[in-house]
């Protein structure tokens, strides 16, 4: 608004002391302003009667992801995740299994099954390794890979980084790259330690709120889904079957009838086999495009 590049300033001074044009400035979210008229109309007592001891009132969430009912919801503080996801949200789409929920947007964290019964308020989310943040709730199911998700969120941060401070400008880029390496099966256990160290240092040293929270998804996902990260680096497998490099397409000999449809559709000629004989996919040539699996009418091709 001052005709400059949108770079963060050093705080203090905070906007309340010196903000727009050097004057004290009140910065609030739309949601805060939206809550004010009802509070004025119905009184503070009424508002604080809703919610929990420490967090009064209601909270709006944007419910989305692999869930049946998506949209904006307003619930009293202290509602549990289970109520939000399975009652209001109507459970997971296509009968899949619940895996986690990213709260607070790309700066927040991902909570797992064990947090489902935690009452939602500011403190509880932070102690669970996430935050209220934007109020977004993205529900993830069993098909979502937690390394890929962390990488996706980092992609957002890398794009949004203003470039002013080194940890955010370069650090997040490196986090993103390392997650990419892990997705491709090129990571090691040592890399997981590095991932954690880099994340903690970025949080500790970044100039503004973006950098100070950007590693949250990585940290919470590594904490809550550690097995999945280890599977990527030690077994070179992606349990959710999302990381293309770690997939292997194989022919199930019991179902294959030798129709040659798959061999004909393969763009790199990785599939061999005579007509009416069982076909074979050469993993060294296969580019994991999935065309063969789509084409097969006999469910004879699966991912291992």
């Amino acid at each position: 608004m001052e005709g400059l590049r949108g770079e963060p300033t050093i705080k203090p001074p905070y906007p309340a002391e010196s903000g727009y044009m050097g004057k004290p400035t009140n910065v609030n979210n739309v949601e805060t302003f939206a809550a004010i008229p009802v509070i004025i109309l119905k009184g503070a007592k009424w508002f604080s009667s809703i919610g929990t001891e420490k967090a009064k009132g209601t909270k709006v969430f944007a419910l989305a992801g692999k869930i049946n009912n998506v949209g904006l919801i307003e619930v009293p503080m202290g509602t549990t995740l289970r109520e939000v996801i399975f009652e209001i949200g109507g459970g997971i789409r296509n009968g899949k299994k619940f895996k986690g929920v990213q709260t607070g947007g790309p700066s927040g964290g991902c909570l797992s099954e064990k947090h489902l019964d935690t009452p939602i308020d500011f403190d509880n989310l932070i102690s669970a390794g996430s935050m209220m943040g934007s109020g977004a709730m993205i529900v993830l199911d069993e098909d979502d890979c937690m390394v890929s998700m962390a990488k996706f969120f980092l992609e957002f941060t890398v794009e949004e980084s203003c470039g002013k401070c080194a940890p955010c400008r370069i650090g997040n880029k490196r986090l993103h790259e390392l997650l990419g390496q892990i997705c491709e099966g090129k990571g090691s256990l040592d890399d997981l330690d590095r991932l954690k160290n880099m994340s903690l240092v970025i949080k500790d040293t970044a100039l503004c709120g973006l950098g100070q929270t950007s590693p949250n998804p990585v940290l919470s996902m590594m904490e809550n889904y550690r097995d999945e990260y280890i599977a990527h680096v030690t077994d070179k497998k992606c349990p959710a079957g999302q990381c293309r490099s770690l997939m292997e397409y194989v022919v199930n000999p019991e179902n294959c009838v030798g129709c040659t449809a798959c061999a004909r559709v393969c763009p790199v000629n990785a599939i061999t086999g005579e007509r009416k004989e069982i076909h074979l996919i050469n993993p060294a040539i296969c580019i994991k495009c999935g065309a063969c699996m789509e084409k097969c009418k006999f469910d004879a091709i699966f991912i291992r």
Partner: protein
Amino acid sequence: MSHIKIELRKEDVDFIKGVCDSFNKDPQELINVLHACQEHFGYLPAEVQEVVSEHLEVPVAKIYGVVTFYSFFTMTPKGKNPISICLGTACYVRGAEKVLDEFKKELGIQVGQTTKDNKFSLSSLRCVGACGLAPVVLVGDKTYGRVAPDDVKNILKEYE
């Protein structure tokens, strides 16, 4: 890169002057001035930035710094039908990336580019606030919800 040649029509220069005047030639209004110029010209070529620089008395390097900082501003003309694919989290988990890939394939361009016939340009953005319709695609002002890769051809057909 060669020296940028500055050539604008007189009415264009007058328009920019007018915009600057309407904001009292206040350098703090730079972003509003640029918004108005982009609205008018469709993009912000170097020449336009030079004129703004002259009238707001802001170094043109600073203006370029602002233009390249905000993704909203562009220095390349957009296509007649700008296509934006939402890559917010909700759209992403519902397969927006595959939709984007399909657009790239169909149009033969990358994100940030415009087709040779100037008909379409492609961009990605982060959350349009319609997560309930994920994945979401915008063409101009029109919104398409729950887009699957198979729908891409039909969407493009509407603008042929």
